[in-house]
């Protein structure tokens, strides 16, 4: 059960103990973290679960897949650390993973 941390847009940190194999989006939504919408529920179809992965983590988390990258290209304020959180599966190696919620989703 790695612990991950999501910083809301107002700076409030949410520390979550999550199951390995679950996605960051699922955990964010279950815990009602503001700013993660996820209309499509994880189908990589809506781009409303955009997060910035902390610089320190981006290499370990890795780049977006091709569909994800295509969706992200048109997201609001996309950066080199942008990912769709429904496509980030948490593993044991992600202990301490930190992400930030963007200003808005679209």
């Amino acid at each position, binding site marked *: 059960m790695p612990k991950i941390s999501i910083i809301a847009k107002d700076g409030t940190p949410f520390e979550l103990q999550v199951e390995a194999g679950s996605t960051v989006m699922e955990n964010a939504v279950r815990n009602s973290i503001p700013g993660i919408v996820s209309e*499509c*529920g994880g189908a990589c*179809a809506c781009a409303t679960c955009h997060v910035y992965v902390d610089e320190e983590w981006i290499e370990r988390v890795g780049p977006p897949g091709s569909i994800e990258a295509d*969706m992200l290209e048109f997201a609001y304020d996309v950066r080199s650390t942008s990912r769709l959180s429904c496509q980030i599966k948490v593993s044991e190696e992600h202990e301490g993973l930190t992400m930030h919620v963007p200003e808005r989703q679209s």
Partner: protein
Amino acid sequence: MISMSNNPIDQGARIVVIGAGQAGFTACAKLRELGHPGPITLIGEEAHPPYQRPPLSKGYLLGEMTEDRLYFRPINFYQERSIDLRLSERVGFIDRVSKVVGLSNGSTVPYDRLILTTGARPRSLPAEIGGDLEGVFYVRNLADINSMAHHFRPGQHVLIVGGGYVGLEAAAVSAKLGLEVTLIEASQRILQRVACPQTSAYFRNLHGKEGVVLCEDTGLKRLSGEDGHVRSAELADNSVLPIDFVIVGIGVVPNVELAEAAGLTIDNGIAVDEDCRTSDPDIYAAGDCASFPWRSRRIRLESVGNAIEQAESVAKALMGQSSGYEAKPWFWSDQFDVKLQIAGYSQGYDNVATRKSVGDGVSYWYYRGGDLLAVDAMNDPRVYMVAKRLIEAGTSPDPTVVSDPATDVKSLLP
């Protein structure tokens, strides 16, 4: 006192929500998020806490998702926010004079504002043609999927009745799991009601390639059974097909009966205005059950996006933050390795432009005259994202520019 849309409800106002699907859940969550402190009651017929339906015909049917992962929120969410979640409860009537909702167990729940999120139900096959046989399933509820799950064994022969998105998704899952799949569609082509011939052809080819036997212009005469269980299907051309079970996806009907019995205006759904308010100013409706004014006509959308946005505008209207609901229709479907994303609403189109992107992406752009109405994008998320923005902004690129493969789709954005 007449409640005006700009006046927020009293802090103590009792909100009752009938229907615990996407719209009902969203309305309650949004009301709390916007700070309504008064009592909220969410009444649902099913035993499960509110859950996502789209995966039912996709990942959940494939066995890739467990039940609890479908739930929007864990059960403690409702307790923590004092949302009185009443599951396995049926509403029998709405009394608009006394402002109470009557439950089938005989008790009543008083309301100051009522929200109807009663959804839609699958159109059923008549019993006269075998619709009541065992082994005939629909794709709407968790219980529907759970009851058909044991049939999904390699070699079983499934008949899918209806070539809309639900039928096609069920066919894709069945074929992936090694079943023998026959899909019949009574009208001339699959997706006839919702898509252009090009999109129909795209999915016809895809399913054909994946081994689905797809018969268009083929009605169902009757299902026959042994010991009450369906065993064969007689088609309109008198051919008889041996089958093990049937999945029916022939559209849905909005659940308007409660509203109708209460005397609310019905027009292809519970009729609402721009604030999702029904003909009774204290009663709102949202989601699959509601028909709303849109570009000088009235439409009803069956989609998650619409359920969320309408439910949020109900909450905003109640809190005195009404901004008027403006639909931004979008849909998606997953079949085999194809992701279809639809931006806009194509009804009323008179011409279609085709765009082939680098790789296997294809998209069809629906126009009425020079106005872009909608885009079906297959494995082409960039096109979808651009199209969604264009349509929401009311911008219509020239179809010849759209079709030109040399055009970078991004350059279409203003």
